[in-house]
Every structure is written in structure tokens, then in C-alpha cells.
């Protein structure tokens, strides 16, 4: 039973609460201890103390104390509330909600508890619970607009648009007079209601409503956008034309507005003349803009195109606009346009451009350099690639402008396409040295180091722009600043080197950043209501729900899954990279042991280096602050090499963490589906494995990886150690029948796949692997065929690199292939076996 406090202690207790609210944590603890000395079993005080402790970074101890508090006073809403708050800090939202509910049962009128519960329900997307909470909060304080808006949001997000609108209208009806224009909360709430009406599909009513409220909304651009869109979709063309014209007057650099205007005017897509005239009008109105000049190049053909692109190119080359090629290359899917561009710019450099004569010598020089630069990028681009020409042109450009960072950058890129990351990194470093204060070029130089598997050099370059006194040094700062691109590239470089611990370490870092981003929304559940910017808030909530659909996530998830697969298939890699014998034949047990010993030794060496670094940093930081400004204690990473991750007992299970969001949010990604299959099949989960295959088949039926996987799946089914349960077997049989029928002769099926795709090296590679699966004694023939595929006119360096991995998998000798590839691409470095 709870002990009652005497009046002095009661006031001390209130003091503790105040201390907490004012973030005087140390004082709070002292005061709490004062109460507890006389009343050692006072639950509420213990609870408050534990809450304060949790804010001092002692969450574990706080939990112990909070549990004791609950034992002493099971019926205290304070104890339960604190218990919930601790769980919330631990991000265990389900338990937190339970605790809040208990607290609320004990004190049903408590607004703070109700609010904390509501916030968590929103975070957990428990919309029904949230509607309940918000309804009761509204009942307590109906005069506050926020409470109405919040309830409307609850209904809106739960999908009940009508109810959401009704709630907003009910509040509006209580307003005796229109709020002043300066009332942004009102302005936003009106626009919010408008978007709800539009979302319900009733554009007529949305437009009508917008007419009524729009003139006094201060987000002028949003009103204009909404109006233009409604009008166009309602087919009210002349008004839509006016609306899009107004938008373009504001911002002529938005292609969406031009599209709207063209539709409103009813200009047919084929009427190039009318289209060009329209764009020309906007060029005249806005002579410094780009969009109206550039867009016509998309639809113009023949001589019209040639003339327009000639004007465009010359103007931009004279101005020396570095993005010119990036802006033009999209035209190259049309090979006729590509050739016109090429011959025009070749013409400029060979001096046939008529307009050059009137420029000064210096201007002419710049024009020429820009043109060489353009040609270098042109010949470097995959749809118009001719690397020797690219190199020749970039050298000429550099000769004319030796200090131009962009030119030097392009040279590095040519080397990259030559398959020579070593030279590429060197050349990019030269570009960096041309402008050491520019972070952009520094970023590129670091990235090229990573592409060359030089993790340390990359990090070292990054350190030129990071706060290196942060805990964990440069890498610590990059983590803190959520530098996703670096962590991803670093991870991929480690993966290429089969340093799986470090690779997993970085992949997990990015995974955790996404968790943080998901967590970030929490504060806005209350903050945004106060600010009243509800449209942006609702968009944010929806975005958070698809957060991991972002390409950044997809990339690290694919990488992490590959790392886990590798670890599963080659458990020795836990000790670090193992040399793969170039002579192919699976090494003897002796050799394996030797290699393992070497790997372990290397691992120990790395650990020692890390430990030394840590010591050095500790020494350096001992007089500096180890606390960041917000008082949070930053700890050194106890496992910088990722040993804990790589020493997992179950890599396939660990991979699921990355795979699940991937399959859920990026189901259209064929690589994700194929990797999903690899994970499931190794876990003997035949149904999900097949589901991945079906999904992949629906996306790209002739995907090479899928081809091999189908075959492998079929073979697996045929040789199961024990039969599947009847029901499962039936589902699987029906489904696989659609993909690869049982009656199909597999060898024929495979050979016909080869002949149907004989111009695609990835397909040939997959089919050769498949053939070995069917006929293990065909290895020699497959090796020969793989070698021959190097003669394919379409083969790329990346594909040839993939072939080396394949030979590794087959346990074959790589020398012949590597030598032939080296001869084919003499500038490359990637085929030099060490």
C-alpha cells in the first residue's frame, strides 16, 4: 500500500516534478532522495526518480527502480505513466501503450496521459485507438481548434474522408466571424479541407470550395496549383489555360506547367509547329530560362530538330554551362538525334561553325574547350561510347583549360569506363587538387577511392570536411550527420573485398539511420498540430509509411542480403577475406587451414589497430568534452569491425530484417525478388521462395537470374529428402507449372534459352550455370563457351567481371578468361589477378 507523505515531503515531491520539467535532473534526483530517505517505499517518488534517471542515460537502472515503484504502489497512475514513458524511450511502443492504458484507467481524466497515449497510437498507426483518444481529448477541450483538426486527421488517415471533412466543418461552423488573414492555422485548415474534398474524388465541389476560400489563403502557390489542376481535370479548358499561364509567370522552370498549358490549349502532341510556337513565346518572356528552350528538342524531328539543337548547343557552349551534356543525353534514345548532335559538335571543333568568327579569341577558346568537353562526355556515354575518342577530346579540353575541375573529372570518368578504377581514382584526385575548398569535388574524389576499394583513403579525404573531434572521429561524424552515400559506398567496397564484418557494419549503420528517420516523426505528431501546418504533416505521415521504398534503402538492403548469403555459403569468411586460388581447383584442406590462419592473423592485426586508435582518441579527448551539446553521452563504438554481426549463428535469419521491408515496399524490383528467393530456398521455405520466383517472372520473364533459379527450384523439388505436406505440395505444383512445366525437358529448355538470348552475355552466363546444374560433366564445355562469350559484340566490362565471379563459383581456373579480357580491354585493371 502507498505511504502517504507529510505535507513537507509532499511539497518536496512537487519540487521533484518541477525539477524534471525544468530539466534540472541532478537537483531532481537529490530532492527525490530526500523524500525517499524518510519514505523509502514511496512509489510516486521512486517513479519520478527513475524517470529522471532515464533522462540521464541510465535507462536500465531506471527500469529497475520503476518496477520497484510499481510493486510499492500498483494503483498509482504516476507509476504506470512513468513505466510507459520508459518503454517509449526504449522504443517498445506496444508495452508503452499498455502501460499508458493502465495509467489512464486509474486516472481517466488525466490529459497528459491521454495525450501520451494518443501520440503513440499515431506512431503505431493505431487509427481506431487514435480516433478514440482524439475524440475524448476533443470532448474535454472543444474550444481549441487543434483538437478538431487532430480528430479530422485521425479520420482522414484511417480512410474516412467524409467524417474528416465533417469534423472540420463542424468546427468552422462555430466560428462567428472569419478569422483574420494573418491566421495561418485557419488558412491551412481550409486548404487541408480542400485537399480532403479533392481526395474524395469530387473535383467539382473541391473547385467550388477553393473559389470560396482560396482568395484568403496565404499559401498562394498551393492555391494556384490546386486550381489549375482541378480546372484541367474538369475539362474547363480556357480557365485552366489562364491558371497554367499564371503558374508559368511565377515559375517558368517547371515542365509540369507547360504540359498543363498544352493540354488546356488542346494542342495535339503531333502538332510540333504549334508546340514550338508556344515554347518560343515563353523563351521570349523569360530569355534567361532553360526549360522553354530545352523541351522542344524532345519532340522536334528532322531539320527542325537540327536547327533547334544547333542554336541550343551553341548558346550553352558559349556560356560554358557544365550540365549541357547531362541535359542533352536524354535525347540519345533516338539514335538519329544522337548522330545529329555528334556531327554538329564535331563540326564546331573542326571550325565549321559559322557563328564563331564574331567572338573574341578568348571567347572562342572557351567555346572550343566547352565543345571538346561536350564531346568527351558524349563519347563516354554508353549510348555513344568510344572511349579513345573520349580521352582524346578530354585531353584537348584540359589543354585549353587546365584548371577546369569538370574537365579533369570527366577524364577520371573515362578511366572508370575503361575498367580501371585505379587510374580513375588518381585522375579524380587531380581534379580535387584543382579546387581543394570545394566539397563537391572532394566528395567525388572520396567516392572514386571507395570504388577502388581504398576505404581508408576515402575516409581520409572525407575528413577534410568533417568534424573530426566528434566521438568516433571522422567516421563518427559521418554517422552523426547521416551521410548515407558514404556509408553505402564504404559498405559495398568492403563487400567487394569480402570483408564481411565491416560491410555488414556499414549496411547496418544505414539501416539504423532509416530507423532514426522513422523515429523522427514522433515529435511532429504534437508539434505539427501546434504549428497548424497539417497538409505537410499528413504528407509526412504517409511518406514515413513508405520510407524504405527510397532507393537508398533498396541499395543497402540488396547489399546486406548479398553479404549474408556469402557468409552463409562460405562460413570461413567470418575470419576475413580468404584468397581464392586463381588456379580454381578447390584448395586442399591444408591450404584452407593455412589461409584461415592468415586471415585470422590479419583480423587480429586490424583489431589491434582499432584498439590503438581508440586509445589515441581517448587520450586526446580526455580534456575535451565527451558529451555532445545536448547533454547526450556519446559512446565509442565497442565493435568497430563488425565482429558481432559477422559472427552470427544464423546469417539467413539476420538477412530477413533487410529483406522484409524490401519485398513489401519494392515488390517491383526484380533483383529484390531474386535475392528473396536465395534466402528462402536456403531456409527451406519453399512457398515464399516460389512466391519470389512468380513475382520476378511477372516483372521480367526472361531475367537471367530467374532462369537459373527456376531450374534450381525444380531440381530441388525433385530431390526433396522428405515429401512436402500435401497442401503445400499442391500449391507449389500448380504455381511452378505456370513457370516451368513438369513436362518440359530441362536441357532443351536451357539450350533454347541460350539461342533465344545469344546476344546477351548475362543470359548466356546464367544458362551456362544452369547447364552445369543439369550436367555436372559439362564444366569444360561451359568454360569454353564462357570464354567465347567475350567475343560477343555487346559484352561489357561489368559483365566480364561478373564472369570472373562465376568461374569462382564453378571452382574453375580464371587465368584464361582474365587474360583474354585483359587483351580485349588493355586499359583495364580489373582483370589483373593477384
Amino acid at each position, binding site marked *: 500500500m502507498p505511504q502517504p507523505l507529510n505535507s513537507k515531503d509532499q511539497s518536496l515531491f512537487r519540487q521533484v516534478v518541477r525539477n524534471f520539467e525544468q530539466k534540472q535532473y541532478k537537483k531532481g534526483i537529490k530532492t527525490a532522495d530526500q523524500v525517499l530517505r524518510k519514505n523509502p517505499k514511496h512509489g510516486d517518488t521512486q517513479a519520478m526518480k527513475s524517470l529522471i534517471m532515464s533522462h540521464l542515460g541510465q535507462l536500465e537502472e531506471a527500469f529497475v527502480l520503476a518496477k520497484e515503484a510499481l510493486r510499492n504502489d500498483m494503483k498509482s497512475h504516476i507509476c504506470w505513466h512513468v513505466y510507459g514513458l520508459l518503454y517509449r524511450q526504449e522504443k517498445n511502443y506496444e508495452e508503452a501503450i499498455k502501460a499508458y492504458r493502465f495509467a489512464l484507467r486509474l486516472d481517466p481524466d488525466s490529459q497528459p496521459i491521454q495525450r501520451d497515449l494518443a501520440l503513440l497510437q499515431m506512431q503505431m498507426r493505431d487509427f481506431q485507438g487514435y480516433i478514440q483518444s482524439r475524440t475524448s481529448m476533443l470532448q474535454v477541450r472543444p474550444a481549441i481548434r487543434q483538437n478538431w483538426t487532430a480528430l479530422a486527421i485521425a479520420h482522414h488517415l484511417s480512410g474516412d474522408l467524409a467524417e474528416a471533412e465533417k469534423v472540420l466543418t463542424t468546427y468552422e461552423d462555430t466560428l462567428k466571424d472569419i478569422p483574420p*488573414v494573418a491566421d495561418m492555422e485557419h488558412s491551412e485548415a481550409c486548404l487541408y479541407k480542400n485537399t480532403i474534398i479533392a481526395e474524395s474524388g469530387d473535383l467539382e465541389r473541391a473547385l467550388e470550395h477553393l473559389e470560396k476560400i482560396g482568395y484568403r489563403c*496565404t499559401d498562394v502557390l*498551393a492555391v494556384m496549383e490546386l486550381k489549375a489542376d482541378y480546372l484541367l481535370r474538369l475539362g474547363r479548358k480556357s480557365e485552366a489555360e489562364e491558371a497554367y499561364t499564371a503558374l508559368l509567370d511565377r*515559375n517558368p522552370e517547371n515542365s509540369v506547367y507547360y504540359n498543363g498549358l498544352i493540354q488546356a490549349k488542346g494542342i495535339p502532341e503531333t502538332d510540333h509547329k504549334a508546340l514550338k510556337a508556344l515554347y518560343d513565346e515563353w523563351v521570349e518572356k523569360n530569355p534567361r530560362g*532553360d526549360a522553354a528552350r530545352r523541351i522542344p528538342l524532345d519532340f522536334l524531328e528532322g531539320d527542325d530538330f537540327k536547327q533547334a539543337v544547333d542554336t541550343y548547343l551553341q548558346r550553352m557552349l558559349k556560356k560554358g554551362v557544365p550540365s549541357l551534356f547531362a541535359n542533352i543525353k536524354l535525347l540519345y534514345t533516338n539514335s538519329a538525334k544522337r548522330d545529329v548532335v555528334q556531327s554538329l559538335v564535331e563540326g564546331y571543333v573542326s571550325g565549321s561553325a559559322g557563328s564563331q568568327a564574331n567572338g573574341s579569341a578568348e571567347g572562342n577558346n572557351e567555346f572550343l574547350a566547352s565543345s571538346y568537353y561536350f564531346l568527351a562526355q558524349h563519347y563516354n556515354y554508353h549510348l555513344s561510347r568510344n572511349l579513345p575518342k573520349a580521352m582524346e577530346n578530354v585531353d584537348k579540353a584540359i589543354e585549353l583549360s587546365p584548371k577546369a575541375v*569538370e574537365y579533369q573529372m570527366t577524364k577520371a570518368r573515362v578511366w572508370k569506363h575503361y575498367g580501371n578504377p585505379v587510374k580513375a581514382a588518381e585522375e579524380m584526385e587531380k581534379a580535387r587538387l584543382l579546387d581543394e575548398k570545394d566539397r563537391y569535388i572532394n566528395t567525388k574524389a572520396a567516392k572514386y577511392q571507395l570504388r577502388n576499394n581504398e576505404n581508408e583513403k576515402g575516409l581520409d579525404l572525407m575528413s577534410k570536411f568533417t568534424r573530426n573531434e566528434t566521438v568516433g572521429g571522422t567516421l563518427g561524424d559521418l554517422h*552523426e550527420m547521416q551521410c548515407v552515400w558514404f556509408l553505402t559506398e564504404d559498405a559495398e567496397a568492403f563487400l567487394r573485398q569480402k570483408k564481411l564484418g565491416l560491410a555488414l557494419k556499414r549496411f547496418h549503420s544505414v539501416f539504423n539511420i532509416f530507423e*532514426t528517420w522513422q523515429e523522427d516523426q514522433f515529435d511532429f505528431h504534437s508539434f505539427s498540430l501546434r504549428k497548424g*501546418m497539417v497538409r505537410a504533416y499528413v504528407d509526412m505521415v504517409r511518406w514515413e509509411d513508405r520510407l524504405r521504398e527510397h532507393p537508398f534503402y533498396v541499395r543497402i538492403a540488396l547489399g546486406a542480403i548479398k553479404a549474408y548469403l556469402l557468409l552463409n555459403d562460405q562460413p570461413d569468411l567470418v575470419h576475413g577475406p580468404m584468397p581464392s586460388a586463381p588456379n580454381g581447383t578447390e584448395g586442399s584442406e591444408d591450404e584452407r587451414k593455412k589461409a584461415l590462419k592468415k586471415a585470422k592473423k590479419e583480423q587480429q592485426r586490424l583489431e589491434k589497430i582499432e584498439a590503438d586508435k581508440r586509445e589515441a582518441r581517448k587520450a586526446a579527448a580526455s580534456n575535451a568534452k565527451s558529451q555532445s551539446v545536448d547533454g547526450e553521452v556519446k559512446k565509442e563504438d565497442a565493435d568497430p569491425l563488425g565482429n558481432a554481426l559477422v559472427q552470427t549463428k544464423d546469417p539467413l535469419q539476420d538477412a530477413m530484417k533487410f529483406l522484409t521491408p524490401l519485398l513489401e515496399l519494392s515488390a517491383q524490383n526484380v533483383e529484390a525478388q531474386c535475392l528473396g528467393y536465395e534466402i528462402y530456398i536456403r531456409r527451406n521455405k519453399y512457398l515464399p521462395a516460389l512466391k519470389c520466383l512468380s513475382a520476378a517472372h511477372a516483372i521480367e520473364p526472361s531475367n537471367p537470374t530467374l532462369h537459373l533459379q527456376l531450374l534450381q527450384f525444380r531440381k530441388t523439388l525433385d530431390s526433396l529428402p522428405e515429401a512436402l505436406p500435401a497442401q503445400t505440395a499442391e500449391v507449389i505444383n500448380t504455381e511452378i507449372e505456370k513457370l516451368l512445366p513438369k513436362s518440359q525437358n530441362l536441357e532443351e529448355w536451357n539450350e533454347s534459352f541460350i539461342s533465344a538470348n545469344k546476344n546477351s552475355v548475362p543470359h548466356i552466363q546464367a544458362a551456362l550455370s544452369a547447364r552445369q546444374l543439369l550436367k555436372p560433366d559439362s564444366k569444360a564445355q561451359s568454360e569454353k563457351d564462357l570464354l567465347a562469350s567475350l567475343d560477343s559484340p555487346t559484352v561489357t566490362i561489368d559483365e566480364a567481371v561478373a564472369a570472373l565471379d562465376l568461374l569462382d563459383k564453378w571452382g574453375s581456373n580464371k587465368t584464361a578468361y582474365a587474360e583474354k579480357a585483359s587483351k580485349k580491354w588493355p586499359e583495364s585493371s580489373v582483370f589483373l589477378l593477384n
Partner: protein
Amino acid sequence: MVDIVPLSSYPSYIDLLPSIQTCNITNLPENYFLKYYLYHALTWPQLSFVAVVRPKNGYPAGGKFGGIAGDVSGQYPKVVGYVLAKMEEEPSDGMQHGHITSISVMRTHRRLGIAERLMRMSQRAMAESHRANYVSLHVRVSNNAALRLYRDTLGFEVEKVESKYYADGEDAYAMHLKLQDQWMDWKAVEKRDREERKKNKKEGENGDDDEEDVDEGDEVGDLGKKEDGEKMVKVKMGRGLGVGDLVEKSDVQS
């Protein structure tokens, strides 16, 4: 082809936040957590803009939410520039004004007027949406290209030099530009309000008018005040600091 689009007003390109953060850390030494971008996007959704490379086939019409107009959710065009802007929350001079937190354009996309367009969009929104008297910004004294843009093209004036403003010890020019000339005409709005009211009254006379019944009565004053009294804790944000503190004090006041 680069399009200049709003970040989080309408249509919302909020999906691009991670890409904007990457653009920033690629180009500039002053970096922020994603939450700081979110804080801008959700507090002043009208003020920030993004420059994106237009996807090859444009933006597929109709996003994921029942075809709501202009929804571009789930699309991830390449970000080549952004302006992140805010209103000064406690202006020292008492004048409501905007501030450019960060602006950058990828080196590969310079000389296209992107930064100028981003600035103009943001400035206009500051004036219209928030009646900003002026916009302020900081620029490195060595950054000639940016100086030319702000001073010569956009008309900013140097207010003062802030010594050692940047972490590496470089000084900054504190610049500003007046914005009153772009303010909305509130008088005209109020005039139209009056007209609408008259119109409604006429309509109201014909219909039933039960306005009286809706009044909330006595609860209003007190509670309203208390809510206002829960003042937000002001926080410095950005490097090393989170938005954590902008939450109300988490509390057990009972």
C-alpha cells in the same frame, strides 16, 4: 532538364528529403540531421524548394492516394539543388523576417540560373505566406559566385560582416533583402471578406439561421489560455542538436 518544385507544400515532394540531405552533404560543409530538414518542411512548408532532374517520361500522373491532384509520392527524381528556408522565430529586431538556412546546387548543374530561381521562389513565399519584412542569409566572404547572385542579381545588401562565422574560421557577410513589395494585399482580401459576408447574409435571410446555438459558452477562456501558456521550448538546431527539444516537456504533471 531541371524542374523547380516545392518541397512540402503542394504538390508535396517530401519523399525527396533524404536526397536533399545527400545533396547538401555532397556540396557543403554545414550539414544537418534529417530531422532538421523535416522541421523546416513541416513548420514552413511554403518556403523550401527543390531542383530535380525531370524523369525521362515526366511524372506519371496520379499518385497513390486516390488520384489526389499533383501527388508525386513514391517518385525519386535526382535532386541537383535545393533551398531550405525558414522564418526567424524570435527576431532580435522584432521584425518578422525570413532566413535562408541552406542553399546549394550541384557543381554539375551550375550556370543554369537554378539558384536564382530557387531564391526567388522562396523569397516570394516568405512575403506572401508570412508577410516577411525581409530575408536574411549568410555567405562566405570568399564565395564570389554566390555574392554576385545575392548582391547583383537579387539585390541583397551587406548588413555586416560576422567574424569567424564558419567552423573553419572564415568570416561571413550577413546580407538581407527587403520583401514588402511582394506582400499580399490584405486590404483587398478584407474587402472581399466583407462582400462575401454581405452575400451570405442575404442568402441566410432566406434560409434558417441557427448560428446562436453553436456557441461554446464558458469553457473557452480558461482552457484556451492554458494551452497558449504551454510555451514551446526554444531550441537551437542543426549540428549536434536535435529537434528533440521542440517537443513539449514530456511530463507527469498530474
